């Protein structure tokens, strides 16, 4: 699998290189940990290729995973956030005909994959830094790579045999809105709602027979996290 590690290294370098505010009462860095609910909003063209009945499609199942955020304060109004999640095992459900031949398809878990999907946001915070409650908005860029891609036994049965899946990596825009609350000193709690755009070409190679389609995700994430600033 090819992952452009330069993106992450570049993002981390950017975070550390940004000038910190001079105010001694504020902290330059934050580490956030929390829960991330992921709603995929999949849209895919029907699978195309040899021996595929009409209407064979997919849907990724929504899930929850661990959220990790690294935030660098740029100024009193601006932060840069690198949002990460523990790469979740996303399960993909078959959508379309009830059966492919006589093999159950619709609603069956046909494949799974893990996503590594860091997003780099530039965020604008409202209200003064002394406020306990600070809403914020942000825009950024999402990079998504897929690994541990497996066709399940049911997927293999539907597609005709052991199947190797490949999904291209994706680079797309992202946006977020959130709210931070200063509990006390170093500690904060946050909630945010983010959306990004992920496009990937999926190719299923079953014993030398290739079928493919393009899947568009509009993954929306709802995060509740606690943060420690230092």
């Amino acid at each position, binding site marked *: 699998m090819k992952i452009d590690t330069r993106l992450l290294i570049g993002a981390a370098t950017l975070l550390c290189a940004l000038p910190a505010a001079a105010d001694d009462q504020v902290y330059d860095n934050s580490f956030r940990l929390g829960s991330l609910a992921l709603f995929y909003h999949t849209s895919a063209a029907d699978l195309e290729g040899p021996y595929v009945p009409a209407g064979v499609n997919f849907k990724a199942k929504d899930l929850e995973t661990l959220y990790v955020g690294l935030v660098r304060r740029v100024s009193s109004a601006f932060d840069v956030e690198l949002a990460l999640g523990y*790469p979740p095992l996303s399960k993909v459900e078959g959508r379309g005909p009830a059966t*492919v031949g006589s093999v159950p398809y619709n609603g069956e878990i046909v494949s799974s994959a893990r996503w590594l999907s860091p997003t780099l946001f530039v965020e604008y915070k409202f209200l003064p830094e002394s406020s306990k409650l600070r809403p914020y908005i942000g825009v950024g860029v999402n990079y998504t790579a897929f690994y541990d891609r497996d066709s399940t036994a049911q997927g293999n049965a539907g597609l005709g045999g*052991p199947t190797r899946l490949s999904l291209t990596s994706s680079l797309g825009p992202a946006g977020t809105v959130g709210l931070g609350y200063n509990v006390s000193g170093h500690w904060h709690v946050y909630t945010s709602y983010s959306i990004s755009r992920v496009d990937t070409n999926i190719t299923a190679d079953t014993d030398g027979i290739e079928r493919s389609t393009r899947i568009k995700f509009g993954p929306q994430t709802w995060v509740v996290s606690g943060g420690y600033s230092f």
Partner: protein
Amino acid sequence: MKNYWRVLGAVGAALVLAACGDSSQTAPAGSSTAPGTLAIDPPFRIASLDAATFAAELAASTTGAELLAVAGTPTCGVDFYYLKFWTVGALATETTESSGALMVPTGGSGCSGPRPIVLYAHGTNANQALNIADITNPSNTEGALIAAMFAAQGYIVVAPNYAGYDISTLGYHPFLNAAQQSGEMMDILKAGRTALPQTLAAATSDNGQLFVTGYSEGGHVAMATLRALQAAGATVTAAAPMSGPYALEAFGDALFFGSVDLGSTEFAPLLTTSYQHAYGNIYTATTDIYSPTYATGIATLLPSKTPIDTLFTEGLLPETALFDSTTPVVPGQAALTAALAVPDNPANPDTPLFQLGFGNPYLIVNDYRVSYAADAAADPDGAVPTATAGVPLAATAPTQTLRNALYVNDLRNGHWAPTAPTLLCGGDQDPTVFFSVNTETMAAFWPAQVAAGLITVLDVNAAPSGPFAKIQTGFIASQAALLAYYQSADGGGLSLAAAQAEVTENYHTNVAPFCSLAARSFFGNFAGVQQ
């Protein structure tokens, strides 16, 4: 900051792991190209149908429903695997990938566990893209036939598409080349047996029983395969070649003497191309054989991805006119000249059929026809034009190169006889592969085996009698129903003569399901599976 970098380090580690986390499920192509080796292992399953779904899909079309009525309701599900394997063309240096079907019965008792194998050879098909494993293709009627007739009744079916078809890059089809085609049958059998335990239907296994059958071209292939398997010391439980051109020299002689069969303009280019590749001496230029109207490009015309009807309409091939309607005069040889005249015997009911083989434009030039016929007249076949006891081949090898190629591939060649129970099935009015010239010639060639009951000859068109009486009754009734259909409004409201012509045109195809049913019934005597 220290913790910050630790987190990034963890992310980096995750990336490294991710880079190693590619899917482990692969379909490696084997590196060996030895004949009989699977090119893709395990094979791809095109479709998996349970018995009820298969029955419903057949019932959904007219031809499927007719097949269902003959073959019976499926008792087993069928998994359709697409075999890709290595074989060789006519020459040992012509290594090529070929493909075919592995149809595996599935389901409960009688459908899984150890099962017998039916090794099947299909009939001539002009479609280069033919894939007999692709049950999802409505035009794959022969695939549906063998699936319904054998696989859905508990037989594992192995059937090649043949070299030159589908994915094969051979560039031509070794049509009626007994050595190549029997070799390819043995190659796919080996590949199928290798693949079987690795399929998604691994609960079905080979019980060691082998039945060999095939229709039309595949009848010749099946008989050649029986001969080759016997020569190799392999066990064949029983065989059933059906409607095949077994006695090729006799068949060729009949044809060049004017008994032109339906389909001959399709068979001729396939045959000359095949033998030119195998022996290199059939022609120097295609114009040696073919009229200028058709000679250009004919060596690579068939099989084709263009429908054969389009080839006819585009003028690339005549539909029926094999020979020039202005027949040749051979100086000083009145008998030969007479033998080459357009058939006009009003007492012979086949005369109108044979006359279709003459016209202008025509496919084969008179000079070539004369060269073949002169050789046949000088060194006659034992069956044509006059049958002799034991119907041997020509006394000496023919000198005319095409006739010699037919002689080499004639299945009377090789000093052999079946040692496994064998059913020779056909229809005696077959206008495409003449029953008398082929099936009856072989029966006459093996009188001891026929008398001993080792070889059974079945004419599905004969008056019903014996163990296959129901099948004969069914075939005769189907012909009558077809005749009535063509005369009905739904069938076009044809006159009796026109309707009869349609029935004749479809006769060869219509025999296939009934002979296949007879083959299944015959095999059932030895396999103990449902008939």
